[in-house]
């Protein structure tokens, strides 16, 4: 990328601030729809960071896959499971949040220390810049051919698995017992299959 150094620094500051603030919003906002849209913003600014790192192909893939597919999928899931429910209070929630916050802050300090004390072998080879897409294509069809093909198999497996997991049960008879399956249990009345009588003893709902 042939833009001036100051412009790059300003872009980096803006993009990293958007990334960090957006990710904090994703985790902390009470409304999950806002979190999902902020997550899209985080993905977009991460794609901007990739552009600053001379990786235009991966930036395009990031926008297409993350913003276009993953974020839309998450929004769909939110729309499908969006039910206002009052979450039961949990004892020691604040303690848990503070403890995990301390652990995460410690992890952050450790990572920063590693990043700033390790003597990186800089400057490395000159970046290929705009030829990065060509190099990625060469890699994918020569030395990374097997992982590339395995990735396609993985995507096929994930697609079939997602369909199998998410579709409603359409069998007319129960596979195990041979009794006619109660479709109303699944389709019409939204009685949960597992109801909790007490806090720790879930019991199977008997068929009416």
């Amino acid at each position, binding site marked *: 990328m042939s833009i001036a150094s100051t412009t790059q*620094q300003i872009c980096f500051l803006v993009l990293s601030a958007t990334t960090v603030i957006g990710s904090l919003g994703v985790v902390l906002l009470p409304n999950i729809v806002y979190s999902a849209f902020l997550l899209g913003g985080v993905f977009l600014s991460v794609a901007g*960071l990739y552009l600053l790192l001379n990786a235009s192909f991966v930036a395009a893939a990031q926008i297409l*896959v993350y913003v276009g597919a993953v974020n839309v999928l998450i929004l769909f899931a939110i729309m499908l499971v969006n039910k206002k429910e009052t979450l039961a209070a949990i004892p020691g929630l604040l303690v*848990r949040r503070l403890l995990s916050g301390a652990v995460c802050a410690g992890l952050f300090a450790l990572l920063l220390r590693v990043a700033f004390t390790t003597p990186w072998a800089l400057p490395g080879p000159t970046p290929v*810049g705009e030829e990065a897409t060509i*190099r*990625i294509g060469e890699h994918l069809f020569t030395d990374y051919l097997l992982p590339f093909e395995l990735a396609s198999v993985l995507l096929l497996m994930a697609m079939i698995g997602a369909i199998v997991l998410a579709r409603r049960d359409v069998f007319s008879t129960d596979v195990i017992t041979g009794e006619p399956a109660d479709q109303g249990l699944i389709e019409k009345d939204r009685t949960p299959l597992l109801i909790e009588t007490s806090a720790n003893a879930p019991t199977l709902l008997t068929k009416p």
Partner: protein
Amino acid sequence: MISDAASPIPLEAFLAVAAMLFCVGVWGLINSRNAVRVLMSIELMLNAVNINLMAFSDYLDGQLIRGQVFAIFVITVAAAEAAVGLAILLSLYRNRETVDMERFNLLRW
């Protein structure tokens, strides 16, 4: 291409942003009550790892950009993980009528 010898942005700055993103993701993974938010935190952590890979690929491996190839594979696996995770979440919601992580405790001691 960055022409001057010293890049205007140090490598450590990218690593710091990625570390921050990863730690926010870990915190959200532990503390979220909503299962969808847990999946979103996992995506944040994967993105942090990707930023690290891309930064190292550009600064230390500028000719053979193996980090970028690896980041593409990570993006692929993340997409598969999101699809399967959300399908599991939908079937959980269908069975339990909730997305509260604290109530998914059938396998808990």
